[in-house]
């Protein structure tokens, strides 16, 4: 027996030796960087230097010059091709709006072919799950994968999961890899929001994942109202909060729908009070209150907007409005969809909302009443200071790289390709963006978009509508243009075209966002890091307490002074610790 075992050992050792020599033989070329990054961070930096000009200077000019080099060197370029091809595994969280052309699937489609043909990266989906909602199937399946250590090379995660992966030391430090392999355009787009998104993906100054950057400005609050009612009741446009109160009062009490019954709702509101359709973000912002976000106070420290005196003032006014019947009496039990019913039925004509509200749910009021007309306005303010809409970091998710991945740079190159094909000079959105009415861009594994994508679309579409020249529009913009011009020409069609006009058209909601941006009014959430320990342990109960107290104050079942007790409780339950942690984090960022 012992002899047999010794033989086996010898054979295994010989085999290992063969494998090791064979593999290191392959590593001579441009794979140096990749190999080094698998080692300790120090060695990685050294290897970067030794890799010479491929490594540090990734200017476009270099890309051109090195194009003629041998296969393996090309792999070191931001968009270079692996030869022989490599395989990278990932997992996909999709939803039921993904539609595929005949023969395409989530495992084999135009993007996956581009990855293979142009980058030499073969993608393998370990699993695909449908349902990308918060707490939905995708999140649960990912949690199980993380807990069981069953992770692919590229891991799409949310902020909490990213923090878990970092704590468990399962993800790779991407700082050097990103620096070396990201194309200039990728770097530009990923930092276009002032670096917030990239910082949110970092831990201790190290980049731990690639963020799916989006647009925070698109979430800014605004006023939506029925302009046909405004005309009918002869009211002024909402320039100040007094105008706003007058409009709400009239929309409640002066029978705007003309059925001789007092059955209209002044302000539509959903049970979460903030966010979604018919939240009150805009109302609070009008009072210079910013519940739920962290901002710098006069002393330069970060404070939470939920517990500031301005919030109390806004709540007091809301309680007054509720008492006089100007806020939906049943808001406490209505989610966004339910809250949207009253406007759909023509019983509500005023809400605080976002730029996308016409697409949902306001299009239903147009369906039920062709005379319904909605107009957006910038937030009014209670004093002479302009109201600043609060916005929060818009990252659709993070792409972390497994520490065991053989080619971490592949993650960066996939991102390069997405950004190049979508927004670069060689972009081909007809093939990779919206092809034949299918949103093929969703098939890509890694996405990111510049924050001004929709705002730019609004400007370009408006310009094209004026000049009648749509030739310069990209496919996405053309889609909006076609719908809007069809609506403006009064052709037959769905009211969806009207909704696009309300968003991207000449008087659409992006006019409001354009004003916020150009006057620099957006109020950023200054905390964009991973959730702090107290946030993880106490955050949800603090949020629940906040919602409960705010709801009670608005509905009048608690006096307004309950707010002072709430501030005290909030601090003692964990708010104070949270504030401390957030400020420590803030110091570290400076």
């Amino acid at each position, binding site marked *: 027996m012992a002899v047999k075992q010794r033989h086996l050992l010898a054979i295994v050792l010989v085999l290992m030796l063969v494998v090791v020599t064979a593999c290191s033989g392959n590593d001579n070329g441009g794979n140096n960087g990749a190999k080094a990054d698998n080692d300790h961070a120090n060695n990685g930096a050294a290897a970067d230097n030794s890799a010479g000009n491929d490594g540090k200077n990734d200017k476009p000019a270099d890309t051109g010059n090195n194009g003629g080099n041998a296969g393996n060197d090309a792999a070191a370029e931001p968009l270079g091709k692996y030869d022989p091809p490599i395989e990278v595994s990932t997992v996909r969280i999709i939803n039921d709006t993904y539609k595929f052309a005949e023969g395409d699937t989530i495992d084999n489609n135009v993007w996956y072919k581009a990855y293979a043909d142009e980058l030499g990266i073969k993608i393998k989906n370990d699993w695909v799950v449908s349902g990308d*909602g918060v707490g939905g199937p995708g999140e649960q399946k990912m949690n199980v994968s993380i807990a069981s250590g069953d992770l692919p090379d590229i891991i799409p995660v949310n902020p909490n999961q990213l923090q878990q992966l970092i704590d468990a030391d399962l993800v790779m430090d991407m700082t050097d890899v990103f620096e070396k392999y990201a194309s200039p355009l990728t770097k530009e787009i990923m930092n276009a929001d002032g670096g917030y998104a990239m910082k949110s993906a970092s831990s201790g100054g190290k980049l731990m994942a690639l963020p799916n950057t989006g647009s925070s400005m698109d979430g800014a609050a605004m006023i939506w109202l029925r302009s046909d009612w405004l005309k009918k009741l002869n009211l002024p446009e909402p320039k100040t909060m007094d105008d706003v109160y007058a409009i709400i009062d009239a929309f409640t009490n002066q029978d705007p729908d003309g059925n001789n019954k007092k059955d209209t709702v002044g302000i539509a509101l959903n049970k979460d009070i903030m966010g979604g359709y018919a939240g009150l973000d805009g109302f609070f912002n009008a009072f210079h209150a910013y519940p739920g976000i962290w901002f710098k106070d006069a002393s330069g420290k970060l404070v939470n907007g939920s517990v500031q005196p301005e919030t109390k003032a806004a709540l007091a006014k809301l309680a007054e409005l509720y008492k006089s019947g100007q806020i939906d009496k049943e808001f406490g039990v209505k989610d966004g969809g339910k809250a949207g019913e009253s406007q759909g039925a023509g019983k509500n004509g005023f809400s605080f909302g976002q730029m*996308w509200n016409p697409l949902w749910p306001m299009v239903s009021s147009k369906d039920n009443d062709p005379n319904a007309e909605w107009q957006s306005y910038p937030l009014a303010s209670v004093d002479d200071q302009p109201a600043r809409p609060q916005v929060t970091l818009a990252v659709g998710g993070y792409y972390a790289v497994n520490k065991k991945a053989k080619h971490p740079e592949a993650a960066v190159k996939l991102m390069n390709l997405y950004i190049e094909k979508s927004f670069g000079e060689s972009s081909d959105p007809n093939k990779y963006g919206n092809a034949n009415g299918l949103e093929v861009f969703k098939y890509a594994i890694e996405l990111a978009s510049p924050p001004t994508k929709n705002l730019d679309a609004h400007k370009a579409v408006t310009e094209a509508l004026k000049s009648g020249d749509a030739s310069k529009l990209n496919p996405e913009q053309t889609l909006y243009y076609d719908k809007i011009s069809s609506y403006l020409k009064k052709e037959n069609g769905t009211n969806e075209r009207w909704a696009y006009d309300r968003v991207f058209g000449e008087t659409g909601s992006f006019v409001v966002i354009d004003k916020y941006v150009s006057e620099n009014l957006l109020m950023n959430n200054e905390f964009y890091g991973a959730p702090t320990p107290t946030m993880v342990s106490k955050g949800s109960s603090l949020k629940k307490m906040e919602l409960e107290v705010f709801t009670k104050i608005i509905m009048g079942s608690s006096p307004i002074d309950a707010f002072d007790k709430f501030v005290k409780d909030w601090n003692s339950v964990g708010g104070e610790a949270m504030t401390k942690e957030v400020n420590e984090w803030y110091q570290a960022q400076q």
Partner: protein
Amino acid sequence: MHYMTSSRRAFIIFNYAFLIGLSLLCLLPLIHVLALSFSSSAAATAGYVKFWPVQFTTNSYHFVLKKPEFLASVWVSLQRVSLGTIVNMALTVLLAYPLSKEVKAFRMRTYYVWAFFLTILFGGGLIPWYMVIKETGLLDSIWALIIPGAVPVFNVILLLNFFRGLPKELEEASFIDGAGHWTTMWRIYVPLSLPALATITLFAMVGHWNSWFDGLILMNSPDHYPLQSYLQTVVIRRDLSLVSQSSLADLANVSDRTSKAAQIFMGALPILLVYPFLQRFFMKGIVLGSVKE
């Protein structure tokens, strides 16, 4: 009973009112969903629909029947229910029979019963459960939905008690006539237990039809989802706070209440149809199983 005291009458009236109220509570949501599924989308979004369709249309059913994912998941569910129920029933009978014997006949009986009973009280937890299934190579196959739950211990205990309630004399007679345990089980016990078997068959079928979580976690592609897992992905509310991330066109789908309603209703329909046929065994089965001699 010709005469009814007034208190008896009051009790009956109250009883009927209470039971009717309770059944309405269960029935009305279903009717609401049915009404929604036959209404126009605009009417549904405006909240006009209560218990009768508004602007009657069968559009949502046309839409759903053309949806390949829906039909594929129905097929997976049918497979799962038929395979799963057969496996469940076979193992339940095979396990309940020996465990129903006296300690005299089967010395370790009590320990075995406790060993099985403990699995009702304690589970390994989600992650170990997942890892066992993954390491045994079941992931992403229909068997992942069947084998981990192949022995429904609660059903075994029901059937076990039912077996014990049968007269011992039958078993003794059977042995005297030269039958072994297999024959006794199949030719004596199983035919005598049809009501109990019908009941737990229904339990097994409904259990397989309704469970959705294992489908989500254990299947690696949406094509392999059973119906209820698929419905879960359709019905769950989309997060609108990051709407700029996904395309704005997705918003059009949010108001898709009518097609959601159609899918929910069609998902509930098959099991609704099975109930009336098996229900008459239902009460009888459980009551008989719980009474011992």
